[in-house]
């Protein structure tokens, strides 16, 4: 392997002309195998794997060249060769395809259902949609055997104000021997709700896949629609979108830094970070009318331009951050009792991070220099100067510092955007071709890279849309991060990951 480029491999397949901006090809099982081997051999990185009636789609990234594409395998017999058999990051995605579409991954070592808990009135909602008759059966957790082991079941309702999910710990005294996650509790059937939705409704839905990343999701959806319809967006819209995206990153990183410290019982840091976060939300509301910036980014541009005093509001916000942040960073840096909890805790092997194509802070704190703003990149970031910070420590402390670096970076980006905001309209008209078209986008949210793939029907409604949260490739690594740590450090590890339940469960 490694002799073929991704482009060359996809070119062997039957190209789908209406797919933009990257290529999609209908492939044979032979090419499918070639791709799976390339994923397993680290030539390529898995970006997404999803199904529809009679077909599975595999999105792949070639990090060395930055090229990406989608391979689609027809499944006339209702099954496809498992990707997860050779490439474990695909396993949960395949279990999801089996649950939702009913296509069976042949050879997947884990045949258990994933999102389907046996509670829906139908099974395989995207496939046969058969009424369910059998009662839900108990989920069989993976075994952990040995002397003096005990299990700690946690959730789905957790002790804090957080989303629901189940964690099954097996511990030997204090040390965690195995953690197994069971997710899917907040599965809302978003993909099926998107079927046939108007663009307006679909944008609202995709903007609520994970509420904390609403700007990034809305942006990914808008960019996918614009790619599909070959619409050019006014320059000012690009810059305003980036402004909102950086505000979202600021608010979330700030909240996370405080929350991680709070889980080590260091409430002072949490209190101050929460104030900074609140200031971002208030500035966002003053500038764009919504504290979390929901429904502000739409296909074609942004809903509303920055008001007359918006620039001043945001400059004041940046100034406040510059005053308040350095003493907090010093506080973190100089509190040995706090670092005693974070340094060396929740280490993730960089090789696992590479294998899983894990993005965001977790990836960059573990040597993987991937940022969708740079690769594949999208406007206006190619005109903005910023580095991709990378660390090698890959522990809770490293992830805190990476967030601190990115907060500084976002502040600088906000300033620069305000400085150089081009004039002109903030939204344009979408082109309507009256034909079926497909689009894809990869956008860097605060948590990592968000993929949105969609097909629009001839009448301009959504025929199929698949949003893939970065958490898909981060949740499994949390199970690895906690190994050999003590149970009491799980909150620290978990918060330093801050994966999305809603984004993953869909």
């Amino acid at each position, binding site marked *: 392997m490694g002799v073929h480029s991704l482009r060359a491999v996809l070119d062997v397949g039957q190209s789908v002309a209406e797919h933009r901006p990257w290529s999609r090809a209908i492939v044979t099982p032979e090419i499918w195998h070639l791709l799976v081997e390339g994923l397993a051999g680290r030539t390529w990185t898995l970006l997404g794997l999803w199904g529809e009636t009679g077909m599975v789609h595999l999105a792949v990234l070639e990090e060395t060249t930055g090229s990406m594409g989608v391979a689609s395998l027809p499944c006339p017999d209702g099954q496809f060769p498992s990707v997860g058999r050779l490439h474990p990051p695909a396993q949960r995605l395949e279990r999801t395809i089996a649950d939702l579409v009913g296509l069976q991954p042949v050879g997947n070592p884990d045949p258990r259902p994933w999102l389907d808990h046996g*509670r829906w009135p*139908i099974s395989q909602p995207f496939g046969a949609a058969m009424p369910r008759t059998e009662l839900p059966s108990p989920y069989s957790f993976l075994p952990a055997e040995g002397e003096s082991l005990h299990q700690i079941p946690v959730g789905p309702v957790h002790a804090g*104000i957080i989303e629901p999910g189940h964690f099954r710990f097996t511990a030997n005294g204090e040390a965690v021997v195995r953690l197994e996650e069971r997710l899917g*509790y907040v599965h809302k059937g978003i993909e099926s709700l998107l079927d046939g939705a108007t663009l307006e409704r679909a944008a609202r839905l995709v903007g609520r896949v994970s509420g904390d990343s609403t700007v990034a999701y809305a942006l990914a959806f808008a960019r996918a629609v614009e790619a599909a319809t070959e619409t050019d967006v006014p320059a000012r819209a690009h810059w305003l979108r980036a402004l909102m995206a950086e505000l979202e990153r600021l608010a979330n990183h700030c*909240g996370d830094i405080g929350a991680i410290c709070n889980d080590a019982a260091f409430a002072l840091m949490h209190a101050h970070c929460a104030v900074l976060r609140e200031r971002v939300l208030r500035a966002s509301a003053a500038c764009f009318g919504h504290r979390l910036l929901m429904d502000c980014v739409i296909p074609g541009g942004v809903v509303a331009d920055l008001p007359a005093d918006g620039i001043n509001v945001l400059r004041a916000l940046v100034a406040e951050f510059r005053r308040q942040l350095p003493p907090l960073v010093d506080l973190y840096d100089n509190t040995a009792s706090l670092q005693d909890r974070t340094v060396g805790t929740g280490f993730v092997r960089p090789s696992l991070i590479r294998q899983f194509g894990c993005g965001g802070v977790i990836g960059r704190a573990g040597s993987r220099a991937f940022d969708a703003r740079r690769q594949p990149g999208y406007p206006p970031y190619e005109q903005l100067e910023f580095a991709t910070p990378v660390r090698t420590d890959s522990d809770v402390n490293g992830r805190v510092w990476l967030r601190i670096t990115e907060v500084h970076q976002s502040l600088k980006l906000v300033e620069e955007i305000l400085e150089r905001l081009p004039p002109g309209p903030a939204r344009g008209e979408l082109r309507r071709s009256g034909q079926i078209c497909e689009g894809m986008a990869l956008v860097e949210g605060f948590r990592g890279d968000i993929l949105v793939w969609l097909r629009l029907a001839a009448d301009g409604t959504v025929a199929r849309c698949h949003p893939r949260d970065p958490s898909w490739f981060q949740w499994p690594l949390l199970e690895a991060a906690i190994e050999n740590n003590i149970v009491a450090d799980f909150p620290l590890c978990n918060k330093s990951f801050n994966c999305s339940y809603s984004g993953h469960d869909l």
Partner: protein
Amino acid sequence: MRKLLFQNLWRLPLTVAAPAPSEHALAELGAKVDQAARRRLGRSLAIREVDAGSCNGCELEIHALNNAFYDLERFGFHVVASPRHADVLLVTGPVTANMREALERTYAATPDPKWVVAVGDCGRDGGVFAGGYACVGGVAEVVPVDLHVPGCPPSPMQLLEGLLALLQVQRG
């Protein structure tokens, strides 16, 4: 750290003035709370938050209630870790089929007298996620609801107005 703590002694508090209880919430609650319950609960209410399927937007704003600007605890509210310690269940999200039983069991584990506050447009009727195979609908489809706080997500101020109405009715 000492410097940071000392600075806070001299600085004016960030905390906003308490809003008036929401009229709408008072009207919704008016008929539901009896005197006996008021006496038993005294002057404080313990809240257990349950995400029954939300997009996590509501959780972010409920979190914000505890920051220095809104300071929920000054009113006698505090968030507790178990439904067994709670007087109020703050429930968000369209209730998903996969969370239905967990919500029912959380409600059953909460001792009487208790209130349920459905937070957000999704908590009312499923919001944008209504319909489809995976969502049951609003919170009231599964457990009795005393108060709805609308919004997508409701702002901390809206949440505060609703909760203060609950406190006023409960204090009698």
